[in-house]
């Protein structure tokens, strides 16, 4: 490569000199070129590696949470214990001692266990939800009373963690959540096929709970849903109207300049500042209730507005002026031109922008911490004023809890959140692909 070429006659002496100088440096320069190229490649592979690493990490941690351990317990729905008066009175059925049934069932499986402490350890194998499960079954079907049934009952979080292989049995007894006797029982149950992992419906059915095996994301999902509905109902019409006004009607003057600068700045204001605004204005000044999806939606819609406005303006500018001129030429008023022709053509672009804005609002949590959507709320919210939390905040709350089972659930909640975000962004891409028009 850096061999001097043999074209003596054509090149003057001085030129050859330059050529040798250049050729002498070529190897170094090409090496530098290759190095630079490698830096670039390394940088981009690092970035992509982070994406893969994060997803692998979350999925690896979270996917076990979609299965939950259940224990098959023989339960005798003793009529004398449940409904001594035999009237099937709902009140009596609701207040019967179902925990005793669970305890009796467990004892039936391990008749050798004696003494208060060992018995307590035995009943700690099942979750405290087991009693409520039996109660639900009896209330749904009072015919169960007086029968013998084998029932799959929710195991406690410690058992679940052990069955998933996350508790080291070689640790000293004091350092693990399960006693030696309990591990022995679990082994016996496993050998008898009476312990099993089933799909974790609890995760999608329950609200938050202090007991990991009973904690679910239903409440957070409903909270997110109500919040996003408010966000969309407020930010979409206002955003579209602003985009239409600025793009189609507004005169170019100082006032519209101020509006534009404002919108651009709002897009870059840290989200937590919006939380301060929500706290000071909506909660303290207007006295709206804390922790309500209504307030969360108000705050998030102010945050989402700039995104929708900017996307909306881009969509409006992509509609060619000839359409406007044609409409005006046919005698349409300016509003008719916008409403009948420009807006329908720009709508797919606006919707795409709004969906992306909604996806961002779905993942937002910092401003919601400010307005009290971080409370521990067990009940699933039923309307826009019920105290509630949202999915990202639920993730934040759970991530603080030390139990291994909660780490798993946090990752599972993240997977659900990411699935929703992928869904929304996928919808936006689909919309763009399907309706995008090149003029």
């Amino acid at each position, binding site marked *: 490569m850096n061999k001097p070429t043999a074209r003596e006659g054509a090149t003057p002496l001085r030129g050859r000199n330059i050529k040798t100088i250049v050729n002498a440096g070529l190897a170094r*320069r090409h090496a*530098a*070129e290759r190095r*630079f*190229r490698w830096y*670039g490649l390394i*940088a*981009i592979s*690092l*970035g*992509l590696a982070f*994406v893969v690493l*994060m997803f692998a*990490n*979350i999925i690896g941690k979270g996917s076990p949470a979609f299965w939950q351990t259940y224990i098959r317990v023989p339960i005798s729905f003793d009529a004398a214990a449940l409904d001594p008066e035999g009237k099937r009175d709902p009140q009596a059925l609701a207040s019967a001692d179902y925990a005793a049934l669970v305890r009796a069932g467990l004892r039936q499986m391990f008749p050798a266990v004696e003494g208060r402490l060992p018995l307590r350890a035995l009943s700690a194998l099942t979750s405290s939800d087991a009693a409520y499960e039996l109660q639900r079954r009896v209330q749904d079907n009072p015919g169960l009373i007086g029968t013998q049934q084998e029932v799959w009952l929710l195991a406690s979080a410690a058992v679940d963690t052990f069955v998933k292989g996350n508790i080291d049995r070689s640790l000293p007894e004091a350092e693990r959540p399960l006693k030696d006797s309990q591990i022995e029982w679990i082994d016996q149950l496993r050998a008898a096929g009476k312990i099993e992992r089933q799909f974790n419906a609890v995760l999608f059915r329950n609200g938050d709970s202090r007991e990991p095996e009973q904690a679910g994301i239903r409440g957070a999902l409903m909270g997110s849903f109500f919040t996003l509905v408010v966000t969309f109902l407020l930010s979409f019409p*206002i955003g579209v*109207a*602003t985009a*239409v*006004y600025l793009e189609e*009607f*507004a005169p170019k003057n100082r006032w*519209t300049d*101020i*509006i534009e600068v*404002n919108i651009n*700045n*709002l897009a*870059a*204001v*840290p989200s*937590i*500042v919006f*939380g*301060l*605004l929500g*706290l*000071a204005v909506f909660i303290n000044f207007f006295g709206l209730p804390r922790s309500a999806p209504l307030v969360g939606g108000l705050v998030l819609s*102010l945050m989402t*507005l700039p995104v929708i*406005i900017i996307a909306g303006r881009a969509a409006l500018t992509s509609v060619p002026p000839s359409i406007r001129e044609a409409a005006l030429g046919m005698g349409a*008023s300016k*509003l008719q031109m916008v409403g009948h022709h420009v807006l329908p053509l720009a709508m797919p672009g606006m919707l795409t922008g709004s969906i992306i804005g909604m*996806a*961002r609002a779905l*993942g*937002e*949590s*910092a401003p919601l*911490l*400010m307005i009290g959507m971080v409370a521990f709320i067990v009940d699933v919210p039923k309307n826009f004023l019920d105290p509630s939390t949202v999915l*990202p*905040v639920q*993730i*934040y709350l759970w*991530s603080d809890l030390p139990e291994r089972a909660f780490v798993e659930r946090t990752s599972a909640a*993240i997977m659900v*959140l*990411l699935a929703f*975000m992928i869904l929304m962004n996928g919808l936006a891409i689909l919309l763009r692909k399907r309706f995008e028009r090149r003029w």
Partner: protein
Amino acid sequence: MQPLLLLTLLLLSVGAYHLGRKRAFAVAGGQIRNLHSLPGFYGFYAALWCGLPALAVLALWAIAQPGILVNWVVAGLPPELQNLPPDRLNLVVNDLKNLVSGNFVSSASDPVMVEAANRYRQLRAIGNAALWVAVLSFAIGGIAYAWRAISPALRARNRVEGIINLFLIASSTVAIFTTIGIVLSVVFESLLFFRQVPVSEFLFGLQWSPQTALRADQVGSSGAFGAAPLFAGTLLISGIAMLVAVPIGLMSALYLSEYATPKFRAFAKPALEILAGIPTVVYGFFAALTVAPLIREIGAAVGLHVASESALAAGLVMGIMIIPFVSSLSDDVINAVPQSMRDGSYALGATKSETITRVLLPAALPGIVGSILLAVSRAIGETMIVVMAAGLSANLTANPLEAVTTVTVQIVTLLTGDQEFDSPKTLAAFALGLVLFAVTLILNIIALRVVRKYREQYE
């Protein structure tokens, strides 16, 4: 609030639309050409007259009713209750409201309270009935007015379009009101704070311990509000983040725009932008549960003490989050450099990397600086990662292995849970918010100006 009433109003408006249209046909003798506007506009005209005044009444009523009701009920209370100091009276009213909404309260057995609650319920029922009457009569009155006003010469289109125009203008001012709202809420509370803590102490003080004691005689009851350690912590974490994000982001952008084949670019660019779409709470979880323990183990292996909530972990993960901001912004900037400059450099025999470092980067430098500034402002304002992965204790240190705290972390910890609004502890959060808002605003304005100026240069 009153969903049924709103629904009724909506249905009435739909009815008004059809009535208005019919009326327009009738007054025009069935000939559209006699009308000034299309019949639909007369319909909208009637619908607006039906809906808007009634909605205004509804809104005013909803704002005024609770206050008036409370006043009337309080006026009906026995004098010894009425003459309580305002804050005690507030408690009584709160009890009353809880009683009315059926919650259990301690005073449930008090006959005076029960009676007052009954009165409240009664008044509220009367008020709601009156509201229905008022709103519906306004709606029907509006329809009647529109019915009479519709004539072939009525400029219905202009009227309707005027209203829509007003709506458009009002919508576009929301952005301004949001900014005003942010500034006012932050500044107002900050002023209250600075009345208790001097500005100089807040900005330059080295002690930060906002936890005020419950009793006045406890040690450290005054609290210390020197925010310098917070600023230092924020800068440290943001600095680490930029050390990660700028080289990786910039080199990725250069590689993607100068070297990558179109196919690779089409795959890698969106894949990298996934990083920007991941919620920050996920990054926080990743930082706190994966990266921080990892760094600690590595530190322990080489004999370094690493705090479990080290600045390094938060900064590293924040850097990963910011990579796509830097890369996509610099990508735009690099693509804006005219091709002729590259061609000129190649024609002189420069290699690609020489063209990039000697022509492209100097030409794109202002834009790149702008995009880095935007990324810095993003890093400073980032909340969830630091809340979950950075510490709470305000250390004034430059050692990335120690735990530091940031402005955003303190805002969150000061404002979650605490309800009272007059303690310096709560107000301090707003002062921190003011600093945060001002700094990010200035950074953004500079960055946007630099980028815009630079873009104009090549247009």
